């Protein structure tokens, strides 16, 4: 092997990841974000520190003193919001998001049982991977993030036939639907689906995502909108919930996903 003695590799490469790393701990960063109420804070910390084995007893204890909806919104969801901020700041990463979301869902399931009539979601969202496409890891991550943001996610899985997708949209009436594709030959399902939905008078945004899909493609057919990365999807969902249609999402896309 050639000797590299005396070589200055800073002239060859720069480790931006090391130079730019955030050195604060999750505890330090979360201190100011957690709820001030002691009971809600305790619940939020279960999510923040991904304690999926103990969140159950903590929520059950909290239910003796606070109402279930408040525990969900001010404890479990508040904890998840802290997690999202830590993720945005590169203190937390994907595994923490997944485990925190799992913890939150366990807690919500327990608290929801005590809400008369159940908890109202922000809206229903249908997600699927395109017909012929077996790749669904991106969809699964996005589903966790959208569900964590309070939406009822119907995950149809991968390799979903177009007819099945259309039937599910007609049945569930979601506020929007998303599809992922990793192959250029499967992403062609999205314009076909959009066309059928439009013919049926269903004008919901149809989000195109996945490795093969780019913004130009997703915007090339009516109803089509784009999400480049999973964390952008809840941001776009929020605007749809506020009443933005697919045309306005396209127009304001850069502003909506700014920073993600």
């Amino acid at each position, binding site marked *: 092997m*050639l000797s590299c003695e005396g070589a200055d590799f800073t002239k060859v490469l720069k480790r931006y990841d090391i130079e730019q790393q955030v050195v604060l701990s999750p505890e330090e960063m979360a201190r100011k974000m957690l709820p001030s109420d002691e009971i809600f804070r305790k619940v939020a910390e279960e999510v923040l520190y991904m304690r999926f084995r103990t969140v159950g007893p903590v929520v059950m204890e909290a239910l003796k003193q606070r109402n279930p909806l408040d525990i969900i919104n001010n404890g479990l969801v508040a904890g998840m919001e802290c997690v999202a901020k830590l993720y945005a700041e590169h203190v937390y990463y994907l595994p923490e998001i997944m485990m925190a979301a799992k913890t939150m869902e366990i807690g919500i399931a327990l608290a929801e049982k005590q809400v008369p009539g159940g908890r109202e979601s922000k809206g229903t969202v249908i997600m699927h991977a395109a017909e012929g496409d077996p790749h669904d890891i991106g969809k699964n991550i996005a589903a966790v993030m959208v569900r964590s943001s309070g939406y009822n996610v119907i995950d149809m899985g991968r390799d979903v036939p177009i007819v099945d997708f259309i039937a599910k949209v007609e049945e569930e009436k979601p506020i929007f639907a998303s599809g992922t594709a990793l192959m250029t030959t499967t992403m062609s399902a999205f314009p076909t689906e959009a066309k059928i939905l439009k013919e049926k008078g269903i004008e919901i945004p149809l989000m195109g995502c996945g490795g093969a899909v780019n913004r130009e493609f997703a915007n090339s057919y009516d109803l089509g909108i784009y999400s480049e990365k999973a964390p952008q999807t809840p941001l776009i969902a929020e605007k749809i919930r506020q009443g933005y249609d697919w045309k306005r999402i396209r127009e304001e896309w850069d502003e909506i996903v700014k920073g993600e």
Partner: protein
Amino acid sequence: MAVTRYTSMAYDSADDMVFGFAKKPVSYGFGLKIGAGYVIPEINYAPRPGTEKDPAKLRKEYVDYITKDVLDRAVTVGFPNVQLETEWVSQMNQAKLSAPVVEGQKEMCEKYHEEYGVNCGTRQTIPDQREADHGLRTGMDAAHQYPEKLFECAEIACENGADNLSCETVGGKEFADYAVTNGDIIAFLFGVGYLGSIDMTYVWQEFSEIAKKNMCVAGGDTNCSGANVAMFMAGGMMDQDVQKTFSAVTRAISAARTLAAWESGAMGPDKDCGYEGPIVKAIAGKPCAQEGKNCQCAHCDLQGNLIAQCCDLWSNESVEYHPEFGGSSVQCWFGSIGYESALMNTAIQLKQEKTLRDLYMYTDRTRGPEAYVLAYDHAYEIGKVIAQDGNDLYLRAKNAGLKAAYILLKGYESKELGLTAKQLDTLQDINKKLSALPDDADKFVDYAIKEFKDTVPNFNMKNYDL
């Protein structure tokens, strides 16, 4: 096909490994000799969306446009060798779509070989559409018959003129997806290192038989569906959805799985996207295909130069067919890999191949943890611990993971390799978890089944005949 596990190394030392030379070269196609003293560019492409809807259009796209464009460019620029790789789109699991393409490419290669003397051939990479929830073994998937279709595709490819049969099998993917998104190295070890190796052995024994009876070469596989997912999610310098130390360890584990195809009768070269190539080549001595800096049309990685260090085929990964200023996209990217291969071959002719190898390697050695474990000296060390317990699918995969963790920790402690605090935390956690595992495979499997049966979606041991 009989299975022969590797229990020793093909190379006596890491320094013996260099691009263009494999201990066991392979010949096929029209004059191609892989690993026989020179590097061959391997061009890969995807048809334009919509062409897959009609057999005639698809054949025209692959044969009259893509294949002809590539071979014309070989003549124009003066490249003596080229391998074409056709990664079948999913619709090509129907013979009416795939057979004319395979046959047409073969005819076109023959024409250019006869007319101009271009050495050429095709790798046909068939799609593995099997889904863990429906079943990975024949007879299990009543909804799609994907396992049956996988073997049918192998027959179609080989019967119609494939020179090299390859595949990116998905065994263990359900565990890999869970492991990568949840940062669970034990799930990766169980799913990819152990179960994935069982599946790959099952699939490649059959592929090797099909290839043999059709006078085709069974090439090899990759852990694209596992370690590459980890690598891409770890991303560039500032992405890190997955920690790069996690990704680096998954790469080492994946080598134990990729090796299984060669142990089950495949001859090489394996697939370009298998970044674990240097490790498996060190063990088996079979030629490997790699991709790096000249595959920017498809993706970015942090070892673009380094990964060329021991390659026998140099690939662009994939590019969609479309026009560029310099010709069609396949012509442009073929130019890129062709000239890089020419540089490597010039180094060989001037007896400077080890110098160029080391230049490639040093360029990226400390760019990230994955590059560090793939540097040929480290890859060789990982190969040794795989071969040391080569007959034990679990233990060899565990060895590989632990050795990679050790190499990274040692690199960090010696200040050769920089790590972020999070990368180091993750690495230490991986080291602790892998170190705590038993050496006995049965004990590990019992533990893993209990641990993952309720957490990993689509968990089904029948997929692995367990």
